[in-house]
């Protein structure tokens, strides 16, 4: 793979909490608190984690749907987080988004043709009216919808078909990177498979990079190249897919894997059930943010925040995790052995 299309370093987004008589700021929601990663051209990086971990906020920050608190977002060698609205416009074309809900993300008063033509017009991609028509028709082919459906309204389509329109709209701008924010989560199993297959085909055909934000680990494993696991505004582990699923190196990843229900009744698997809930991002725990729920936490975890460090694995290739356990001798490190297969009953 070549140079990264996207590089995010130490990204922070803190939302102010307003309160009091004069609406003064009384605190912050530390939604994303120092996140770094990169995506290569044509690569899929998945961002996984539970609700409130900040994964969607990261997606929105990359799309510059709001200004970030600190850090850098570099798209194809050019820093975009501090660009003015005008300077940002040409860069906006290169990062597009597919949202979760195919029902609310399409304007019900626009025909499919206009939904797809809008980004083409906005970025001045079509030479003339005929070219525009042709591009719209080609987009319909790309997402496997009949060309004559361009005259129809969003409500005439099923959820899966609407998601195809959403994908076509993202493709209309000829982006390099698409942020898929839970893009298949709202779909039924059989339709989900259709859209997952379509996304994979498109990536192959067009060499797209995908930031795939999802909480569904089975889908992620199926379609990603690398995975970043988030917890309470931080990335706790990043690894190539195979390495992560074979040998998770963070206790949270391990618990996530063991918690996914698998469709094989009676499978013997190691089960780790985390106690309690995710703490509030307004007042995240000191030290390691996961220590309040971690089954292996020890004294150091409560005071010192672990950094993302390289961890040696059998498949050794860029596997990093933020956990103090890896500083201990193997005998005292429950994550030293590869437990993936036992966790998912594979």
């Amino acid at each position, binding site marked *: 793979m070549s140079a990264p299309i996207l590089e995010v370093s130490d990204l922070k987004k803190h939302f102010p909490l307003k309160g009091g008589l004069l609406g003064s700021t009384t605190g912050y929601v530390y939604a994303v608190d120092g996140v770094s990663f990169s995506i290569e051209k044509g690569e899929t990086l998945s961002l996984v984690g*539970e*609700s409130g971990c900040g994964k969607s906020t990261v997606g929105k920050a990359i799309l510059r749907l709001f200004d970030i608190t600190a850090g850098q977002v570099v798209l194809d060698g050019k820093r975009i987080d501090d660009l003015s609205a005008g300077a940002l416009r040409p860069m906006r074309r290169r990062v597009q988004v597919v949202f979760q809900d195919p029902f609310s993300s399409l304007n019900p008063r626009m025909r499919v043709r206009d939904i797809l033509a809008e980004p083409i017009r906005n970025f001045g991609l079509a030479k003339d009216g005929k070219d525009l028509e042709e591009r719209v028709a080609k987009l319909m082919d790309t997402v496997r919808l009949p060309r004559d459906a361009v005259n129809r309204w969003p409500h005439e389509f*099923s*959820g*899966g078909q609407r998601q195809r329109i959403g994908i076509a709209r993202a493709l209309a701008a000829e982006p390099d990177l698409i942020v898929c924010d839970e893009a298949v989560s709202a779909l*039924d*199993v*059989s*339709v*989900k*498979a*259709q859209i*997952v*297959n379509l996304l*994979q085909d498109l990536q192959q055909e067009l060499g797209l990079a995908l930031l795939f934000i999802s*909480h569904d*680990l*089975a*889908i992620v*494993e*199926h*379609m990603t190249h690398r995975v970043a696991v988030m917890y309470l505004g931080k990335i706790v582990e990043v690894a190539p*897919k*195979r390495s992560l*699923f*074979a040998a998770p190196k963070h206790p949270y990843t391990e*618990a*996530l*894997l*063991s*918690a*996914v*229900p*698998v*469709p*094989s*009744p*009676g*499978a013997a698997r190691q*089960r780790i*059930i*985390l106690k309690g*809930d*995710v703490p509030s991002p307004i007042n995240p725990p000191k030290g390691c943010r996961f220590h309040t729920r971690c089954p292996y936490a020890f004294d150091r975890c409560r005071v010192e925040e672990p950094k993302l460090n390289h961890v040696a694995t059998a498949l050794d290739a860029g596997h990093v995790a933020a956990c103090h356990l890896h500083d201990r001798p193997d005998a005292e490190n429950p994550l030293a052995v590869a437990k*993936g*297969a036992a966790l*998912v*009953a*594979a």
Partner: protein
Amino acid sequence: MALLEVENLQTHFRTPDGVNRAVDGVSFHVNAGETVAIVGESGCGKSVTSMSILRLIPEPPGKIAGAIRFEGRDLLKLSDREMRDIRGNEISMIFQEPMTSLNPVLTVGRQIGETLRLHQGLSRQQAEEKAVEMLTLVGIPEPRRRVREYPHQLSGGMRQRVMIAIALACNPKLLIADEPTTALDVTIQAQILELMRDLKHRVGAAIVLITHDLGVVAEVAERVIVMYAGKKVEEAAVGPLFNNPKHPYTQGLLGSMPKLGSSLHGDETRLAEIPGLVPSLKAKIPGCVFASRCPHATDLCRQVAPALEEKAPGHVAACHYATKEGAIAA
């Protein structure tokens, strides 16, 4: 005698453009203490089936026909008053949305106590005592404090625990859980599933679990009913259903799900798709409801609806071609 017997249940809705046959001739039974899952995709009629059991379908536009026998009594023949004595008492329900199914202006204790005061005539004080007991049962820490809190002060997982506490307060014989973990995060889902398994042993209620998640089914159900377009297409014990599905729809559903751990074997094959869409329930379908999407469909399938047939002991499927060996004859 089974605890619950549903016979030829038909729940239809009148709409401006025709009758919607949401549930169209479904029969099944649930034994005491058993967990039965009803699975299917959106619009297959699984939720309408569960709502019909408790007669929560507004009539009109809905219309429930058939028979729903609970301990031998046909629920469809009871008066509204008699039905109220059953709801929340002998049969109770857990809904999907723990955010919207609790009353935001009443304390958790009041909401748990409500059924107890209504059905068991407890005083306010006794009801609160019992509510604390129920919160302890469902594993909420500091129940004495929590019982006086409002739903917004609780997390999603805790709200679902409260819902379960309400449902179990009167020791129901049957618990209907409609997508009880769908709105929850996976680590919280694991907690709630563990709780349901544990409570089942302790309380002994039968459970009808409505879900679209085959993983959840495999983890908690003993018997599974697969629904498609308002019909039951397959029913079997959980093992045979997953290991040897007979109906092409069930096979398709299982094939279209990515399996966790697939990368470990390197068998990352392309997901199997079920082509096309669920048919409209407003038009009468002459043949098999799945024929339009089935890879094995023949003219026979398009013309004659297959009956539910026993393909193996305790394993029924509605398919002309599902053989007893589980292979599809070409």
